[in-house]
């Protein structure tokens, strides 16, 4: 199977893990990574900058209808839901928050699962609610590969535990193992 797209969801406790993953991936990494992370509502800017400090890969907050390119990281903008469209571009919306979240991990995962099918890897990291569990199941149902951060390693394990309970996930990995896994995709 050729995995071209990786979508990562997380909330509380995921920022450090995402930073760690991005700092370990080489500049030449040619998959597309989507990040759907809950953030505090009043922290609306500076997130890309903070993530970029240690990343070797360019991190962008996409514009509505922006074309998806390989070797980029796209971060769901604060206060928007992020979707994927056939024709390889992204769409944003300001529809109602889902489970109090906008961006909603479930919505982005559903949309990615439908659009990218078995070319997709879904990863759930540390987080404080159940968002993402149904989305990860949908990725699995659409032929994608599912990975969850080992709850034992998570700062807050609600999100990963919910994901594991909802789906028979393919891998439960520590952050170091996630990095090795991604590096081997190359």
């Amino acid at each position, binding site marked *: 199977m050729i995995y071209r797209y990786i979508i990562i969801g997380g909330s509380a406790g995921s920022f450090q893990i995402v930073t760690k993953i991005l700092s370990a991936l080489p500049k030449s990494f040619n998959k597309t990574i989507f990040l759907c992370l809950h953030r505090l*509502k*009043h922290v*609306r*800017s500076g997130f890309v900058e903070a993530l970029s400090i240690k990343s070797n890969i360019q991190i962008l*907050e*996409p*514009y*509505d*209808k*922006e074309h998806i390119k390989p070797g980029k990281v796209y971060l769901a*903008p604060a*206060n*928007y839901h992020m*979707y994927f*469209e056939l024709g390889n571009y992204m*769409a*944003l*919306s*300001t*529809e*109602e928050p*889902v489970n109090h979240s906008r961006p*909603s991990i*479930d*919505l982005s995962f*559903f*949309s990615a*699962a*439908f*659009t990218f099918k078995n070319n997709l890897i879904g990863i759930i990291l540390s987080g404080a609610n159940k968002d993402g569990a*149904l*989305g990860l199941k*949908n990725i699995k149902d659409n032929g994608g590969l599912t990975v969850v951060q080992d709850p034992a390693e998570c700062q807050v394990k609600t999100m990963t535990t919910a994901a594991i309970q909802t789906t028979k996930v393919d891998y439960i990995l520590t952050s170091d193992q996630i990095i090795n896994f991604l590096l081997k995709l190359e």
Partner: protein
Amino acid sequence: MEAEETLAVPIEEIQLFIETVKGCSEYNFSDYSVKSLSRRLEKVLIDNKTTMANLVTKIRNNKDFLEKTVRDITVNTTELFRDPKAWHAIKYGILPQFKDYNTVNIWHAGCSTGQEVYSMLILLYEMDFFHKANVFASDINIQVLEEAKKGVYKYRFNIEYLDNFDKVIKENPYNPDEHTDVPYSKYFDINKVNDIIKMKQFLVAKPVFKKHDLVKPENVFYTKFDLIVCRNVLIYFNFDLQNRIFDFFHDNLFDSGFLLLGMHESMLGPITAKYDKRGLIYRKK
């Protein structure tokens, strides 16, 4: 709203809805983004506990229900001073350009329940442009316009945006030492017991609200504009319709007029040649 699989409402049902609405009203959803329309329609079907066949029958027979459905399909998210960065662009990048104008015409296209309009009025007042500004606002939906005209909002839904008010009105992002003390009561009354924020009468009396459907290229205000604000509206349309609207805005801006879109919206393709872009701000060439 539950998470759902994309295109949970099949394309044939979406077509049936579009054709029905087109046949019995002036609304035309043909050029809406299919995926987002599908999500909205699924929500409508779930909320009404009905099927598409029943929905379209009811739409044909009941004008009020049609209006309500239009409201439910369109996304009405709006906040006081949503995205302070965008308001900084207005405050420091756009409005100062109008300093020597005798009048300033501003159009909020797709104003929903009006929070953005009142944010603009407050900023205009603070910058001493209020008296020479003509503020126009439109939306496809009459019900949200009626709410906008009242300028009364739930306190508990909007309380967090007082923080945005502070960022835009009281603070200067370019000078952390600057702080203007502006009491909220200058512009609105907060009634915590009744859960209400009520805009002051002098603000409520100012704007002209009219129904307008961006799908139709007609100017319902019969004037050109110095600034058009259209944020997070065009994201629900397909690429072709977006470009037709950018053209329409271009025709209805005064020379060197400004256009402000949502934080994560941009123009793509040939239309970009008609505008200069600096940061968030588009300016008519």
